[in-house]
């Protein structure tokens, strides 16, 4: 009798409240939850970049972005109470940091790269002296950028910086003629260290990737040094 009474009340409550299953996201809006950090490739920087040369000056336009905030999150899969997603992060000028480091990576190969801070590489806004250099213009748009910190549930747990970057790169002539267009995606990790500059690593990785892309090299008329 007692149980029946309770059951009926609880059943009524259940029906009134609604009981359903759904699969809502476990990451911030627009983000991917990085569950398997240990399986991702490690970001590395080649200490001896390839030596390239090009007769063209390369104008690297400031990177534009459609990346939104939060830029990333802290996930702890090893020890958590309410959720592995512990907190979210805000970082305003990630596109500019990447712009600087991609330029560094391209310049490290010996190419003459000039950064155009004022525009994203708009050919109609090229000034006279810059146009006289007959440059090729590289335009880059960041379609997605995510930088998370992840503690794995392995034994022992490891702390990782995990990044995901998707960019659209276009190479054009100063008259607007397109020479190259491609999407590049980088998804990788690096073991956490104090004061590690992950955006630097990511920018260098993207620059390195471009210097290995035959289509990109053709578009900027680059070839290995020592090869005519």
């Amino acid at each position, binding site marked *: 009798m007692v149980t029946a009474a309770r059951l009926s009340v*609880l059943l009524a409550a259940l029906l009134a409240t609604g009981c359903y299953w759904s699969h*809502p996201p476990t990451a911030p*809006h627009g983000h991917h939850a990085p569950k398997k950090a240990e399986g991702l490739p490690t970001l590395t920087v080649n200490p001896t970049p390839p030596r390239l040369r090009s007769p063209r000056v390369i104008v690297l336009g400031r990177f534009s972005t459609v990346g939104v905030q939060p830029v990333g999150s802290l996930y702890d899969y090893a020890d958590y109470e309410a959720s592995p997603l512990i907190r979210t992060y805000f970082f305003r000028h990630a596109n500019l940091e990447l712009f600087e480091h991609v330029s560094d990576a391209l310049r490290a190969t010996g190419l003459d790269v*000039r*950064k155009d801070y004022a525009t*994203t590489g*708009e050919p109609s806004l090229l*000034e006279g002296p*810059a146009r006289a250099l007959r440059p090729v213009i590289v335009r880059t748009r960041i379609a997605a950028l995510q930088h998370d910190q992840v503690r794995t549930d392995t034994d022992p747990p490891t702390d990782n910086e995990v990044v995901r970057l998707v960019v659209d790169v276009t190479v054009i002539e100063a008259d607007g003629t397109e020479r190259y267009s491609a999407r590049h995606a980088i998804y990788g990790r690096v073991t956490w260290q104090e004061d590690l500059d992950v955006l630097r690593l990511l920018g260098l990785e993207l620059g390195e990737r471009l210097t290995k892309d035959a289509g990109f090299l053709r578009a900027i008329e680059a070839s290995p040094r020592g090869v005519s």
Partner: protein
Amino acid sequence: MKRNIRDAAVTLAAAAALTLLPGCGEEAVRVGTLRGIPALLGPLGYAPTASLSVSAPVDQRPQVEHAGDNIRTNLFFTTIVVTHWERRGNYVTNDEVASPMAGAELHEAMIDALRTANVAREVVPSGEAEFSLETRIDHLYATHHAVNSGTVMVMEGRRDTHAAVGSKSRQYAAYGNVVLTAKLVDHRSGGARVIWEEQLVGTGQQPPGKNYKAAAQTALREAVADALATLSVRVGAALDRIQRGPTGPAYTIQGLPPVFLIERVSRYRSFVERVYVDTASGHVLRHEIGPNADPALARPGEWLLSRRSPEGVVLTPEAYEGYARALAARYDLRTVDDLSRYHFFGVRAAP
């Protein structure tokens, strides 16, 4: 019997209260508005010559930013003794919370920001002008993540009924995001030539709080103000490149200037440091640190020979080149990796 029903009612009341406490409940929040967005930037220059017509933005936000999204119940079950629920996911503002009049209000705020920044001689909402600015709203929303769960367990003793309750929750910051696609069209020769097109981002953040909708509204207003400041700087820079910008016609100088200006950007791009140097002696005449309107002015920490004269007038590229060549006899100026400026490395060492 009476006591058992009372106990069950107590259990339900506890469960209901716990369900509301961790954030499931709706709080009374005002309807959103993007009216009265403060213009973050003052005048960027003092002698603009262009006229600019700014049309209303075209709203192309995805459906989720109109309809919004809510934190959803992930798991809910109840048995004779245990009731458990989990709620997690993302809150995304809808039209009512963001603003039911987003397009019109953004248009108004855009004109206000461009006028306050003194980007053009006149900024008009419609009609004929030398240049027109067309914009599209790609994104305009605020969001935050939320996680909470709770359990109620009811155990019946011989003389009384006991309820054990437990709940866990976590609050996350609210973020505002605005992405606009902007296009500057030149009508000076009678046609319509696009001279600049860019996607501009504005962001804002608010700390976690109980009234998450109000926090989202504040973060979104911050994001709109940020996007409009960026829009003003970019439109100003584009017009400056064709010598019709906020600083007016570019300046030409001859010979060695008596004073020159070097500048560098702070680590997080918030401030710009300017040093006025006496050309003949190399002495610093003035050193000032002020807010930086354009985070993309330069790489932080690197000293550059400014493209402006000490009076604040933008130099033509040819004038800058001549100015730098004249200074290079005494000062170490080098083309490093900047398309339009020289890096400054101090006084040239004696031969």
